[in-house]
C-alpha cells in the first residue's frame, strides 16, 4: 500500500506573480545561421513582461546569439540569417516592413564591456534622445537626470555632468550605459553578460539595479554566472550545444525551480558544475 503523499512544488510560492505575467516577447522556432553554420536551432521561449529572463549555458551555446536576435543586432553580422519568428507584443520583428531602428529603440541593449561613448556623461545619456529628435534643453536635462537616477548614478555624477563617460569606474560606466539605454524608454532591455567585466561589489550594485529596473522594463540577461542568474532572474532558459555545435534549448522554467530541482539531467549537471 502506497502512503498518501501531498506534493507541494518547491518554487510555486517563491514566484507568486510569475504565472500572472503577460508575454512581452515570444521566440518562435528560431534558428540563426552564420552563412552555412547553424548557431542556434529551433528555440521556443516566452519572455514575460516586467520579469527578468536569464539565458545560461556553456560557452558557444548561442545564448548571446539568441539575445542579439531579440533586437536584430545579428543583422550587423554579414551572412547572418534567421529562421522562425520573434514576436514583440505579438508582432514579428523580422517581418518585412519592420523598421530595425524602431525595434532597437523599443528593445535596448547593455553590453558585456561597458561601452560609454567618448563624450561627456550628459551627452552619453542624451545620445539616444537626440537621435529621437529631442531638441528642448529643459526636457533633455530632466530626462538625463531621471535616467541617471534610475541607474543609481546621479549622486556620483550630478556635480560634474561634463566629465567624460570614460573617466568613470567600470561599474559606474556600466550604470551609465544602463542610463543611456533607459533614457529612450525602451520596453525591453537586453543585457549581454553585463557584469562580466566588473568587480564583485560593482556586480552586486548592477544586480540590485536590475531588480528595481524590472518594475518598469522587461529584462533579458545572458550570464556566465549561474549564481547571478539565480539571484536576479525570475525565469531561466538553459541552452546547450549539440554534436553539430548548434545551440538548443535544454530547459526553461521559473528560476527557483530550475536551480533547486531541474527536470533534465543535463541542466542538473551544468548548474551543479559537473559539465560545461
Amino acid at each position, binding site marked *: 500500500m502506497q502512503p498518501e503523499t501531498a506534493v507541494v512544488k518547491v518554487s510555486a510560492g517563491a514566484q507568486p506573480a510569475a504565472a500572472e505575467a503577460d508575454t512581452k516577447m515570444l521566440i518562435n522556432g528560431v534558428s540563426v545561421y552564420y552563412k552555412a553554420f547553424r548557431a542556434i536551432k529551433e528555440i521556443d521561449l516566452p519572455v514575460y513582461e516586467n520579469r527578468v529572463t536569464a539565458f545560461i549555458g556553456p560557452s558557444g551555446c548561442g545564448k548571446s546569439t539568441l539575445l542579439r536576435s531579440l533586437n536584430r543586432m545579428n543583422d550587423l553580422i554579414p551572412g547572418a540569417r534567421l529562421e522562425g519568428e520573434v514576436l514583440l507584443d505579438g508582432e514579428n520583428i523580422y517581418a518585412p516592413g519592420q523598421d530595425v531602428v524602431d525595434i*532597437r529603440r523599443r528593445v535596448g541593449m547593455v*553590453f558585456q564591456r561597458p561601452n560609454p561613448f567618448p563624450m561627456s556623461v550628459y551627452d552619453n545619456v542624451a545620445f539616444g534622445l537626440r537621435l529621437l529628435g529631442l531638441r528642448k534643453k529643459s526636457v533633455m536635462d530632466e530626462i538625463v537626470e531621471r535616467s541617471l537616477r534610475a541607474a543609481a548614478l546621479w549622486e556620483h555624477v550630478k556635480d560634474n555632468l561634463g566629465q567624460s563617460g570614460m573617466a568613470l569606474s567600470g561599474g559606474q560606466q556600466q550604470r551609465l550605459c544602463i542610463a543611456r539605454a533607459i533614457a529612450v524608454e525602451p520596453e525591453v532591455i537586453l543585457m549581454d553578460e553585463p557584469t562580466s567585466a566588473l568587480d564583485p561589489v560593482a556586480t552586486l550594485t548592477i544586480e540590485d539595479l536590475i531588480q528595481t529596473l524590472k518594475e518598469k522594463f522587461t529584462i533579458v540577461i545572458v550570464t556566465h554566472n549561474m549564481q547571478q542568474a539565480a539571484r536576479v532572474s525570475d525565469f531561466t532558459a538553459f541552452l546547450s550545444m549539440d554534436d553539430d555545435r548548434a545551440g538548443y534549448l535544454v530547459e526553461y522554467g521559473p528560476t527557483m525551480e530550475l536551480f533547486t530541482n531541474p527536470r533534465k539531467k543535463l541542466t542538473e549537471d551544468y548548474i551543479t558544475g559537473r559539465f560545461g
Partner: protein
Amino acid sequence: MPTESVYAHVNLESNYRRRKILNAVMLSLTGLTVLVAVVPLVWITVYVVIKGGKYINWALFARLPAPMGAPGGGVLHAIEGTAVMVTLASVIAIPLALLGAFYLLARPNTSLAHGLRFSTDMLAGTPSIVIGLFGYAVIVVVQKHFSAFAGGIVLAIIMLPVVLRSAEEMLKLVPAEMREGALALGSPEWHAALKVVLPAAMEGIVTGVMLGIARAVGETAPLLFTALGNDNYEIGKIVRSGIRHHQSVGKILGQIFAQPADALPLTLWKYAQQPYQERVQQAWAVAFVLMLFALGINILARARLAYRRRKLYG
C-alpha cells in the same frame, strides 16, 4: 616513475650563474642597438642645428630670395608654397582617407575593400617621383603650366595611403561594442561612425594624419614636375594685386593655386647645389626649419592628445 627530486640532477648554482650572464649579455646587446639607432639621429640633429641654426634670422621667414649671389633675402616663397600645397593636399586627402577607412571598417570583406587595400598598399610603395610624373602628365601637361595646384594634388596622392591605412588600423582598435552601442540605440550606421567611432579613434587618427602631413612636407621629387619652383611666390602680393583689381575671393584663391610654387625641401635641394655661399647657408637654415617643423607638429599632436586623454579618462 622516478622518485628522486629533480634537484638531485641539476646544479642550481651554475645554472643561475649562466642565466645571469646570458641576461647581462642580451641586455647589453639591446642597449648597444639602441645606441646605434640613436647616434645618427642625434648626430644629424646636432649637425643641422650647428650648421643651420646660426643662419636663422627674421629675413629668412619674411623675405623673398635675394638675387643670386647677393647676401640677405629669405625663403618666404617656399614657406608659403609648402603651406599652400600641404593645406590643399590635407583638405583633399584626409576626408577621402577617412571615408575610405570607414568603408574598410564597415565592409571589410567586399571586393571593393580588397581592391582599396591593395591599391593603397601599392600607392604607399610607389616611389614619389613616379607620382610626380603622373601629376605632370595628367595635370601639368593638360593645363599647360606648372602650379601649386598640381603640387598639392600629388602631395595628396602621397598622403592618402599613409592616412587611410593608419586610420583603418586605429578604427579597428575601437571596441566593436562602442559602435554596436550606438546602433543598439537606433543610430544609423553613418551617425554611429561619425559621432562615436571616429572620436574614439581620434588619438590614433591624428597621429596618422600628422605622419601624412610630415611626409607631404618633406617631399621634394614629385614637386619638381608639378610645382616646379617659383622664387617670386608670395601670397601677400597675389592678394594685394587681387584687391587692387577688385577680383573676387575665388579668383584670388585661383591665382594662389594657379602659379608655380616653391616648397621648403625643393628650395633646400636647389640651394644646396648652388655655388653661392649665401644660398648654401640658407639651405642649411631651411634644413633646420624643416626639422623644427617636424618637431613642432609632433609636439602639437602630443600636447593635443595628452589634453584629450586627460579630458576623456580623467
